[in-house]
């Protein structure tokens, strides 16, 4: 089993490694920063390239012993075949599979940089809680809370040793979570900061989606997530002024948002609740009837959201989902309309032509209203009811508890969903419409891709002649690259201006 060789045994064959690894990293950084520069207009692009190199210099020494598997193939140009022939048939939380995934594919370094906000280890990472879901011999789930790690290589080591089926990220605490019991004053152990998170789950759309239910999804109902991301992302950026927002596919049927701006991370629960309340529109359980009750005039956030959502309502809801095809579902639509007389004539019309499409039914409302089916029709009330219906069928349904609490744990990006085997990859919001959850790579596919990779496969991006890391050989590559550029942009914004100045001065002196 060549993949499971211990790091010690590999060290012997790593003599020639460091230089090429450094070059490799430097080029990466250059990439990332270019991408970001287009994105976020940063000051002083001068010497960015150089700084990128410096940034990675700090890592060069760590790299040496830290990522043995990434370079393993250097000494063995022919990648060994996966020990398990057909990876598709193995459970996605199989320990062997997980070990390979964590060793060869999981981007621990970027995860570290993302949470640490600096290349050198700080308390932002060291005091951060991780919670691991592991399995004991009898396959009972054990949930290990309050794990923490000082550096990227230590978390990597521990994850590979424990092989959790997934792990979650919690807040940064006042002290190291592992030391919480040694404190004299227990109440001084408090959560300090965590990204503002959002969770959208398609099960919450079961009342309005017709294509799937429960844990199943398809590209049709994924559109609900697409529109939700658009609305929430726009509001967070335009209204609240947040810049570093990462959306992550949750591995099965939803998406998570991580708002990583410093301002967002240090918010207390009251402020989190305020944002959650600002965004929340759909209220009430399955028995409460009309779920959208808004005051007029609509708040600017809501009228803007309505503008975003209206085209989706036409195509992705009315045409694709056909939500009012059956008569009992059509009855729900009628219950949301205000005018009794109009409802009567609509009901008559729809009963006489069973199977009438939702698009036509939606058009019928206005057509009949114009034809004067109801004498005392209040046109404004009807319009407002129609707006409410559009929102009820399109507006994001957030699992609000996740956002409200500073100390809520949320699954880390890039872990494997135990049920589907899919990797929780970040979603590039610039290419939001192209994202298809059914095309997200599974851990089994990825490991097969490493095996079938040939060095000549991607000549363009590897012009330097160095050997790519394992994740670069797979379809995980664009996702890790997106993550990296996100992390770099975040780190650049976080960098202490004082340090930056010193560094510039040092460079000026030819340091």
């Amino acid at each position, binding site marked *: 089993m060549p993949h499971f060789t211990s790091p010690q045994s590999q060290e012997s064959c790593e003599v020639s490694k460091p230089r090429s690894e450094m070059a490799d990293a430097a080029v990466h950084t250059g990439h990332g920063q270019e991408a970001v520069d287009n994105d976020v207009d940063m000051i002083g692009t001068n010497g960015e390239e150089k700084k990128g190199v410096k940034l990675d210099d700090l890592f060069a020494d760590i790299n040496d012993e830290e990522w043995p598997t990434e370079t393993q193939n250097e000494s063995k140009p022919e990648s060994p075949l996966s020990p398990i022939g057909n990876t598709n048939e193995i459970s996605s939380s199989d320990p062997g599979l997980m070990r390979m995934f964590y060793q060869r594919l999981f981007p621990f370094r970027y995860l570290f940089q993302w949470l640490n906000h600096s290349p050198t280890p700080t308390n932002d990472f060291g005091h951060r809680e991780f919670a691991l879901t592991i399995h004991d011999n009898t396959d009972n789930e054990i949930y290990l809370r309050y794990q923490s790690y000082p550096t990227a290589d230590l978390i990597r080591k521990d994850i590979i040793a424990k092989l959790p089926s997934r792990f979650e990220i919690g807040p940064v605490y006042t002290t190291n979570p592992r030391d919480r*019991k040694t404190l004299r004053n*227990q109440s001084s152990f408090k959560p300090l900061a965590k990204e503002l998170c959002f969770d959208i789950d398609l099960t919450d759309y079961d009342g309005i989606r017709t294509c799937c239910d429960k844990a199943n999804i398809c590209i049709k109902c994924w559109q609900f997530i697409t529109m939700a991301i658009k609305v929430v992302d726009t509001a967070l950026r*335009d*209204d*609240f*002024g*947040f810049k570093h927002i990462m959306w992550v596919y949750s591995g099965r049927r939803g998406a998570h948002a991580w708002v990583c701006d410093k*301002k967002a991370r240090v*918010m207390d629960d*009251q*402020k989190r*609740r*305020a*944002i*959650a*309340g*600002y965004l929340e529109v759909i*209220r009430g*359980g*399955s*028995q409460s009837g009309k779920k959208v009750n808004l*005051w007029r*005039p*609509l*708040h*600017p*956030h*809501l*009228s803007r959201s309505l503008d975003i959502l209206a085209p989706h309502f036409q195509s992705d809801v009315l045409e694709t989902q056909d939500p009012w095809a059956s008569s009992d579902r059509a009855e729900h639509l009628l219950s949301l309309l205000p005018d009794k007389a109009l409802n009567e004539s609509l009901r008559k019309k729809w009963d006489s032509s069973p199977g009438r499409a939702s698009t036509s039914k939606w058009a019928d409302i206005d057509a009949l209203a114009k034809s004067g089916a109801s004498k005392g029709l209040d046109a404004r009330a009807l319009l407002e009811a129609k707006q409410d219906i559009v929102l009820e069928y399109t507006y994001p349904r957030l699992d609000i508890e996740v956002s409200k609490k500073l100390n809520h744990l949320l699954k880390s990006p890039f872990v494997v969903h135990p049920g589907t085997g899919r990797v929780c990859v970040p979603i590039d919001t610039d290419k939001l419409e192209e994202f298809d959850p059914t095309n997200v790579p599974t851990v089994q596919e990825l490991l097969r891709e490493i095996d079938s990779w040939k060095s000549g496969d991607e000549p363009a991006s590897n012009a330097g002649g160095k050997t790519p890391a394992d994740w670069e050989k797979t379809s995980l590559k664009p996702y890790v690259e997106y993550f990296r550029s996100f992390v770099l942009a975040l780190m650049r914004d976080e960098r202490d201006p004082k340090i930056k100045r010193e560094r510039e001065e040092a460079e000026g002196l030819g340091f």
Partner: protein
Amino acid sequence: MLRQDFNRPEIKRRALADHRKKQFADPTYQATEYHHRLNFYATPPTADITLEQFEQWAIDRLRGRLSFRRSRFLPPLTDLQVLAELEACSFRNKSLDETASHMKPLLEKYLLLQSNTSSSSRLFDERQKDHYSHFILRLAFASTEDLRRRFSRVETMLFHLRLNEESSRERDAFIKDINLDCEQVTEDERNKYRDELAAVTGFRKGPEEETWIKVDWERVPDLVESRRVFMRAGKAYVPSKEQSSMVVAEFTKRLDRALELTARALPRLDEDDRLTPILDHLSKNFITPDASYTSSTSSVAGADISARNIDTLSAHFPLCMQNLHRSLRRDAHLKHFGRLQYTLFLKGIGLNLEECLIFWRSAFHKITDDTFNKEYRYNVRHSYGDVGGDSNRRGGGYSPFSCQKILTEHPPGPGEAHGCPYRHFSLENLTALLQGVGITDRSVLNGVKEDKESQKFHMACNRCDPYSCYIVPLLLICGNRVFEHVHKNEIKKAKEESIMTSAQLETIVHPNEYFKRSYLLKNLGKVNGDDIKMEDS
């Protein structure tokens, strides 16, 4: 390397030396002027007042519910005074308007503050008293976190009441004076966001008539939450009518900070025996009329509280718990919040953990031992503080829910049986349930119906929060109406024989209190009267 010298430790030391000197420096007195009726209490008072004034002013601001048995200077006070009454209002969940009308006579009597327009000659004295009494109480209530929190809450409320009373012109002038550090929205910007701003204020007025200010949204989270401000790039645009809530938030913030500073300075208050006893006395008399529950007082002596006896005991349970019990017996299952509410109640009546586990295990008779152990046992043990984090274990788990909590938190969703039947049931279902537990008296049922219907009015007037807490008192009355009916004979007897004081027969605000009283009343003959009296003391 030279730059390192700028890390100047000497300069720091010099600053420290200065600081020490400052303590002994002569205080610079400045004559305080009160331009506004309202006061942010930024500068401490410096003039001399007599010891009598010191105490009387503080007491006027505070109060003594239990007659202020004090001191050398003053006759006993029996009236309720300002802050304590305010706190009582908040415990009774009165709305701000209700509180305002309730407080008006009291404020006029003890803390009259007239507006600038009133041309009264006593303006200065009134404001001085307000100013000084505030600072005296700061000293009295800075010592512990709990006192600080309560003090800051009631002072904020008082400030809020006064701010609302203020005429808009004086309010604007005051807001301008306190220097909120916010930006006026310029004409250009107002035109740019014309439509958006109009949408926030509603149709009635154009945005031109409002004065808008722009602040970091973090300073007005409550306005953001209910979408009453326009948001752009992290700034909240606040219309003038909402600015008061901002001022109030700022008031609280500054007061909290000042209180903490006071607390730190207190040990250095090198005071003789004149002020300290008064301050101690003041803080001790700020007693909470809170409906907090303590386990020592709620369990009932002499009752057989065990798993197999719950069915019998359930006759004494309040309606919410009876409903849970009936659902449990019917379905052999309860959902999470139902289990939580019921477990904690059972814990509160004195059922121990072992018995409680037996109770749940036998109640969930449709599931296997394995499922029970895997999915339910932990939660029950967690509620008792048997497992979980340190604080949970040390604190003995959660407290049983009060009526307030049941009424306002976690409204039941589909398939859930927890909550308060008076609040969360439709009238038909409520009536059916009441009849099911044997309440058939028409007048009682009608009373319940009226109580329940009148809540709707309150609901409608509350725009932002459908789970308003204003309805709590009504529903409590509702529950108490049933209690009084069920126990009317015993209550009469208890009163006649003066076994229980009238305080013990006050409104019930906790399900465990309901059980305790119900059990005691129904067992008046059996349980030793001494026990009851002991619990009273």
